[in-house]
């Protein structure tokens, strides 16, 4: 009897022990954060960003920190921690902020993502600081702070912008006598010609849900105009708006006519960027951050990439000159930092004429401050993009940035689900339900 009892207990115990790994990972998250990486001690100033080691911005931030640390009057040691990939970046950042620790300066997306930090009082209100330095404030391009301001308070300093154009391979387009489409009908025609000649029309993937969502946001805006999304942003809109269902149908139509590569559900951002970079697809709808990649030395399409506006839809309410875009790289200061002055110094270095010019000329970025650029140095694609954007009439923001991680990411998954075969009505119905559940 006793023997049987022990065996049974050991069985249960084994189960609980095995399970613990899962639960421990969850419950512990707040405790584990306390000790690590907190700033302030011994005059260290910590900066977090999400850059990869091979990115231009990575090298730049390392250089800035190095320059500062080498200075004689440096009162702290600047240290940049890079946490590549937002999937890892935000959880780490949030855990540390929750413990009232964390970096003195960090990078954040705009709008909804930033608002969470502002609302909970985790980041510094920068309005006074900006007003105290009118020269600095004036240097930014007009509207630069729009998506970084809540209740008339500025919470972040933009360092670069990103927009989503339609990149196309000029060589392929010339070969088949095509011109960049301006309407959906023309686009379908272009797709048909490319298909008939065995060329993949779009470098497109849905393994990472945001890449397919980004494409669909362009479609949704061209069909329904700005209103449906603006209403969702202020909490009065609905995903059951006919323009969203139609967006789902358009995505399906494009998939069914072969506009996307085979197996696109398994292609991530790197895969599709490489696909376009290697000249294996004719078009690419992606953020302007891809300019650095397609113009890199190892790119087979270097110098052959054209930029166009996303086509309009017949009867659609969206304008050809409305762009999807945002301040893409914004610096914020943690509310209770002990290194406010040094933090400001670091941020001001980023928005200096010198660094902004470098970002634009060497990385093809859209600068956040007004700078005079040397036309010969800026990549041709970036110049073409700026030309296309000069007629801009309006701008809307990435859904997952605007609506925040919860609803925004759920939208991304919804588009993925539709592309994987779920009926658009059904998919948007559950997104609507989710949105209702998560309203504040």
């Amino acid at each position: 009897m006793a023997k049987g009892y022990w065996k049974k207990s050991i069985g249960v115990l084994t189960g609980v022990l095995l399970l613990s790994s899962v639960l421990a990972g969850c419950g512990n998250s707040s405790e584990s954060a306390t000790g690590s990486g907190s700033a302030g001690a011994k005059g260290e100033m910590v900066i977090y960003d999400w850059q990869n080691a091979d990115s231009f911005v990575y090298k730049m931030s390392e250089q800035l920190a190095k320059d500062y640390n080498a200075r004689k009057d440096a009162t702290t040691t600047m240290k940049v921690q890079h946490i590549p990939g937002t999937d890892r970046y935000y959880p780490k950042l949030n855990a540390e902020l929750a413990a009232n620790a964390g970096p003195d300066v960090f990078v954040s997306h705009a709008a909804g993502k930033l608002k969470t930090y502002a609302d909970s009082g985790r980041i510094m209100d920068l309005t006074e600081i900006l007003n105290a330095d009118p020269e600095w404030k004036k240097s930014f391009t007009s509207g630069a702070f729009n998506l970084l301001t809540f209740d008339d308070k500025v919470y972040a300093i933009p360092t670069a912008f990103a927009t989503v154009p339609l990149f196309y391979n000029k060589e392929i387009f010339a070969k088949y006598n095509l011109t960049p489409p301006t309407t959906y009908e023309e686009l379908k025609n272009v797709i048909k010609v490319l298909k008939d000649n065995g060329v993949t029309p779009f470098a497109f993937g849905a393994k990472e849900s945001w890449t397919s969502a980004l494409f669909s946001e362009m479609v949704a805006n061209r069909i329904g105009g700005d209103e449906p999304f603006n209403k969702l942003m202020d909490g009065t809109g609905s995903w059951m708006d006919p323009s969203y269902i139609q967006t789902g149908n358009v995505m399906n139509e494009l998939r069914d006519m072969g506009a996307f590569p085979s197996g696109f559900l398994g292609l991530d951002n790197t895969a599709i960027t490489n696909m376009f970079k290697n000249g294996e697809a004719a078009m690419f709808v992606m953020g302007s951050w891809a300019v650095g990649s397609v113009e890199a030395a190892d790119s087979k399409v270097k110098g052959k990439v054209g930029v166009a506006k996303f086509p309009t839809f017949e009867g659609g309410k969206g304008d050809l000159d409305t762009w999807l875009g945002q301040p893409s790289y914004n610096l914020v200061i943690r509310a209770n930092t002990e290194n406010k002055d040094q933090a400001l110094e670091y941020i001001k270095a980023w928005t200096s004429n010198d660094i902004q010019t470098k970002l634009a000329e060497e990385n093809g970025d859209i600068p956040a401050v007004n700078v005079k650029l040397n036309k010969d140095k800026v990549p041709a694609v970036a110049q073409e993009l700026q030309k296309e954007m000069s007629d801009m009439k309006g701008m809307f923001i990435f859904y997952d940035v605007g609506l925040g991680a919860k609803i925004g990411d759920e939208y991304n998954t919804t588009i993925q689900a539709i592309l994987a075969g779920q009926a658009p009505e059904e998919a948007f119905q559950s997104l609507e339900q989710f949105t209702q559940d998560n309203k504040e």
Partner: protein
Amino acid sequence: MERMLRNKSAIILFLLPALLLYTAIVFIPIVASIYFSFFKWDVISPMKFIGMDNYTRMFTRDSVFFTSIKNMMILLFVSLVIQQGLGFLLAILITGSIKGKEWFKNIFFFPAVISSVAVGMMWSFIYNPEIGMLNKLLDVLGMSSLANDWLSQPDTAMWAVSFVVGWQYLGYTMILYIAAIQNIPAHIFESARIDGAVGWKVVWHMTIPLVQPIMKVTTILITIGSLKFFDLVFVMTGGGPANQTQVLASYLYGRSFRQFEYGYGDALSVILLLMCLVATVLINMIFRKSSIEY
């Protein structure tokens, strides 16, 4: 020594370190998870008490939750079939009279010692629709119509992942069975043979009943392992396409750490805990008669 171990305070002294550790890293987090599951909380904003809302949402409005449960059942089924069936069969063959036992044993056990990330990457390449071995193999065999985009098609993805899980842990189950079979005293088989039992009869009437305790342990291990499974799903599909390969552990990870719904993630983990406990109790009931006397 014996007398010292009868002393109650000595027992407590020896148990204390393990107990404290266990409390700190298992018990407290479990209790904390249960507590947090009644809140809406993204870690940085203030916590908001919402009662049972996380649970009602899960059971009434969350289709991904049910997809995860379904996927866990697929995983459990495939793991049981591959690991129990094939694992036992291999154990019988290896403990039988074949050459190169050690060699086979090591070969089959090998996947269990490779890191799951490496296993996941390797199989992602094998399943790759363009450069993958599997589609190439089907092509060579003249069955290219069966070629598929294994990991990104919703109807094959979960089965493809489950197969790899079974493959990885097959050797583990096999080793346990080998140990159990080798533990059976040789004279029992001898007398069985004298009584006229040969071949599969021995397996059916002698080996299976005698390894029953191990069968119970492996069933519990496989069941709990499948229910709380995370790593290969995370590496191979990340729960995609469109949540179609999500299991509860990967789903709660995504909700907690990608979408910052820590309260909801905790509620999911509480359900996972309950499922594992219920499964363990059920299996114990099924294998009730478990002590074997030789």
